């Protein structure tokens, strides 16, 4: 594991999980990663790599068919997996916030934007209704919404996708959390809006020193916003390091293949190279021998 340049805020250590629905198949294989103070850390991989399982484990919302079997999620010196539910709930929103993937489903369709932003400010920050309203206005202004009063009075369906995502970003950063989990926050947006949203997340996090775990399948997006990257495949860390190192000099053949599969508008005949079968075969063999090793080590230990 590479060492972060800054003290770590989120320290995931040897996190493991299995899928109960699918013959106890491992879905996370001793994943370790650190997110430093003020760092944007990209968690990249293809679908099924375990990216969102990690995000859900941090937020304490792992689905019932997934069971965490080991490891720790250290946040400011405490293991989130051992926190009583009440304490974790108090932490969420206040110290750890989420920017979800789909801005169209994350907002309550029957409530005005104002209510949805002020709820958190009142519950988690103890503001009065009046203070919360003023703060909500300031937050929308901070995410460069030109007419905050109109947006506050709107229902979600009256806003574009980009506008909804700005509202969610305002709500996430509004409580001045220490850690933001951004789960594919631009996947549903047009490229021009995506660029604005990426710029916004970067500027807010750098202004407030927020740590961000940025989940994405898009190497282009993480290249532009992340300080460091963790590349996952089948729930196992394949490669980890500074973004420039991972992208310019990938050490693992899988990372190389992932980069090569990306189409590039600046070069003809790109985007037509799928991951070579031998790279996948070797990676799967690596994982099988890892699983065998873990099973062997586990056989001697009694699970309590």
């Amino acid at each position, binding site marked *: 594991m590479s060492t972060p340049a800054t003290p770590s805020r989120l320290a995931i250590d040897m996190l493991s999980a299995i899928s109960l629905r699918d013959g106890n198949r491992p879905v996370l294989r001793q994943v370790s990663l650190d997110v430093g103070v003020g760092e944007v850390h990209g968690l990249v991989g293809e679908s099924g790599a375990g990216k969102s399982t990690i995000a859900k484990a941090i937020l304490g919302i792992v689905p019932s068919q997934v069971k965490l079997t080991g490891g720790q999620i250290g946040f400011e010196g405490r293991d989130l997996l051992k926190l009583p539910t009440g304490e974790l709930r108090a932490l969420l929103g206040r110290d750890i916030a989420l920017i979800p993937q789909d801005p169209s489903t994350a907002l309550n369709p029957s409530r005005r934007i104002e209510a949805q932003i002020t709820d958190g400010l009142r519950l988690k920050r103890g503001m009065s209704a009046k203070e919360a309203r003023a703060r909500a206005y300031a937050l929308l202004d901070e995410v460069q919404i030109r007419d905050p009063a109109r947006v506050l009075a709107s229902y979600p369906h*009256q*806003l*574009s996708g980009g506008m909804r995502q700005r509202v969610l970003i305002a709500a996430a950063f509004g409580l001045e959390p220490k850690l933001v989990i951004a789960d594919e926050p631009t996947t549903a947006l047009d490229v021009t*809006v995506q660029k604005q949203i990426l710029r916004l997340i970067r500027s807010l996090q750098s202004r407030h020193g927020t740590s961000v775990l940025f989940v994405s399948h898009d190497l*282009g997006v993480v290249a*532009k916003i992340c300080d460091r990257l963790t590349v996952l495949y089948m729930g196992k860390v394949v490669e980890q390091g500074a973004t420039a190192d991972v992208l*310019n000099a990938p050490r693992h053949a899988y990372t190389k293949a992932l980069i090569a*599969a990306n189409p590039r*508008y600046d070069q003809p005949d790109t985007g037509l190279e799928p991951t070579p079968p031998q790279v996948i075969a070797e990676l799967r063999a690596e994982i099988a021998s890892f699983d065998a090793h873990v099973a062997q080590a586990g056989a001697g230990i009694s699970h309590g």
Partner: protein
Amino acid sequence: MAEDLLVARDITVAYRRPGGAETPALHGVGIRVGKGETVGIVGESGSGKTTLGRALLGLVQPSRGSIVFDGSDITMLDEAARRPLRRRMQMIFQDPMSSLNPRHTIGRILTAPILLHGLAATPAAALALVHDILDRVGLVRGTIERYSHELSGGQRQRVGIARAIALRPDFVLADEIVSGLDVSTQAQVLRLLQELTREMHLALAFISHDLSVIRSICQRVLVMRDGEVVEEGPCDRVFAAPATAYTRMLIDSIPLPTVDPGWLDAAPDLAPAAEGAAAART
């Protein structure tokens, strides 16, 4: 330049809203697809690219303009007159899950149109054709026993391609067909499409929001915005020297997988007015 296959001129489409007001979706759009040529149609949401595709296939009726397919004007054909064209003009959909009947096996989905259009005389002959097509798109023959929900996204999209090419069409419209796929699966699908267009001398209109994907397989590109064509030309020229500020901005907004510290802060050349406009919709 390849011989014309599909030429649409001055296409105008307006959607009628409840209450009678018409919302224009396309304003006088033209497109030309040569035989065997792959033309990209790119634009952001609301640009009209999907409406254009639907108009080309006769799925929406333009209020103005003409569509000529292989020398015949097909703009105003009724359902019966259009039937023979259905075989020659096929479509691959964005979401293969919702375009494949969940209660039919893949075998049934693929053989039915072959029998309907008389490309095989017996079910056994249709099945033999389907086996060949499955081989060609890289699916095992056992796929015919499966249902769409049992397949991965990449496999479903191969089924979508198989269904489109089974009828040996001259023209295929592909609407955002790789947008939900992982890059490696996307590369497989794009490569397959590229090979098929070459082997079958197939004309392809490829709708996508992703200019990088367009560059991968298209010879020419049409850039759309707010129901109009902003720019059109060979990919080599458009990507190297876009003629309009809007195309330039679209290109500059694509994040390449390279570290470039100045990229995020580089302001786009043009304020995307569309976002504010969409916010005002009721």
